């Protein structure tokens, strides 16, 4: 079975992003970029399916500007077989990304599409579900375990109260949660090999998609600061303050 895995280029998770002084956007000058952590989990899961003999081919796709080919190469170094880059310009919204991915799905006809549940820049948590609606595929979001059983996919999902298990017909969409797996590191030989793997580039027009904008970002600002309070000497003083000053316990 063919597995398509989507990867996004985002600010490295260790970078503390700040709003620019004029509030026009976030300051991303000279910051380190990386593959979105949830997408990395998606790649790892696809590669494990291949190693288990379930997947026959793993294709990594990314939508974005030219530099996102670096993140496709990262996915190839982690074990994906070939890459697809849908080259776009500027800010692009989840609905349009989902439409572009639908175009790739129609070309490649994968049985399974794995995406991260959200990217750590926009924090939208939308693309996988939108792709599901557009392709009329079922979705297993926030997955902590997946298992192919015949022509069905069982997905254990992280939900508010605990865990939920659902069964999906294939082809299906999965979005990853933290505990699905622990991604491996790419070895140097694999990084070298990844440079030679096939990487095709498409434009939105090639996929028959018009890039539209529905959301305008008017301004960005830092979150309201919370004032640091006081240090207490010991547990007795802490309990006294909570009882008599903050009055949150009785």
């Amino acid at each position, binding site marked *: 079975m063919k597995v398509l895995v989507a990867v996004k280029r985002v600010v490295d998770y260790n970078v*503390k992003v700040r709003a620019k002084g004029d509030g026009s956007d976030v300051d991303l000058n000279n910051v380190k970029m990386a593959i979105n952590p949830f997408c990395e989990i998606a790649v790892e899961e696809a590669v494990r399916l291949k190693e288990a003999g379930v997947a026959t081919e793993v294709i990594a796709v990314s939508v974005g500007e030219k530099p996102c080919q670096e993140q496709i190469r990262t996915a190839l170094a982690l074990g994906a077989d070939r890459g697809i880059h849908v080259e776009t310009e500027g800010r692009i919204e989840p609905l349009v990304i989902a439409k572009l991915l639908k175009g790739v799905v129609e070309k490649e006809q994968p049985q399974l599409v794995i995406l991260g549940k959200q990217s750590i820049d926009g924090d939208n948590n939308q693309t996988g579900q939108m792709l599901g609606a557009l392709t009329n595929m079922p979705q297993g979001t926030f997955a902590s375990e997946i298992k192919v059983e015949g022509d069905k996919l069982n997905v254990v999902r992280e939900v508010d109260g605990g865990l939920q298990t659902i069964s999906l017909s294939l082809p299906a969409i999965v979005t990853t949660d933290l505990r699905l797996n622990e991604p491996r590191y790419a070895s140097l030989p694999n990084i070298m090999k990844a440079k030679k793997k096939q990487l095709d580039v498409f434009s939105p027009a090639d996929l028959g998609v018009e890039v539209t904008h529905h959301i305008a970002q008017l301004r960005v600002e830092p979150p309201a600061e919370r004032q640091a309070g006081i240090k207490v000497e010991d547990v007795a003083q802490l309990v006294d303050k909570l009882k008599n000053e903050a009055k949150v316990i009785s």
Partner: protein
Amino acid sequence: MSTLVIAEHDNSGLKPATLNAVTAAQALGADIDILVAGAGCAAVGEEAAKIAGIGKVLVADNAVYEHQLAENVSLLIAEVAAGYDNVVAPATTNGKNIMPRVAALLDVAQVSDVIAVESADTFKRPIYAGNVIATVQSSDARKVITVRTTAFDAAAAEGGSASVEAVSAVHDAGLSSFVGEEVAVSDRPELTAAPVVISGGRGMQNGDNFKLLEGIADKLGAAIGASRAAVDAGFVPNDMQVGQTGKIVAPDLYIAVGISGAIQHLAGMKDSKVIVAINKDEDAPIFQVADYGLVADLFDALPQLESAL
């Protein structure tokens, strides 16, 4: 102008998150109806009808909606949404699962995790793990919105007398089925609704040590949470995670134990009324947001705290 609020419920009762979503919907300035999709959920419809300020409650009661499968419920919501300008749901795992599917079916964008409504088309939402707040404006004629429940007060659960109407539409996409669920059984309050939360971080060292929090939680009627570091380290399950990628909480009292205070975690708890931090590292960033900081070894402080309460 009219707004449809999607009820969060378990087929027997309404979840409080619905009341927060109603308050966010009120800020849009339009008439509000509520949709209850489920199975055997008539009681939820009656409960929703009592919420103050609701026009009518639509109840789609059918086995295909019993487990909130996104494939089925999204088709229903998209159909009902045709008569509304806005569709609002709480940003629970359920809302996050279903609503983007609804937005795509309607060919509109979704505004996720709204923390403030500036006007009928302009919203504030956290991005970059809460490091930045973006103000965004939607140009879609129909708006699909999920709201962060801790950012809006609960609407009055009593006082209304909305009419209740049945929705007969049955959408079975035939793509998915429910197999089972493991719901954490606990006598403690739910994390997102608890008046007091006590959370442990990497400093707890292992899962067993979370028992040290239990006695205190019992005395305070608190829920127990964890930082992402503690979840990543395998100490506790992910449904205890407080943070941008976990649950967002805003209790009256939040006690952070052995938590350094990564921005990821702060994004999930910094709207708490009173924050207490217990950490042996006096430079831990958690102290910058704590009202009361105690620099101490948690293995000394926790037993003392339990006996002092």
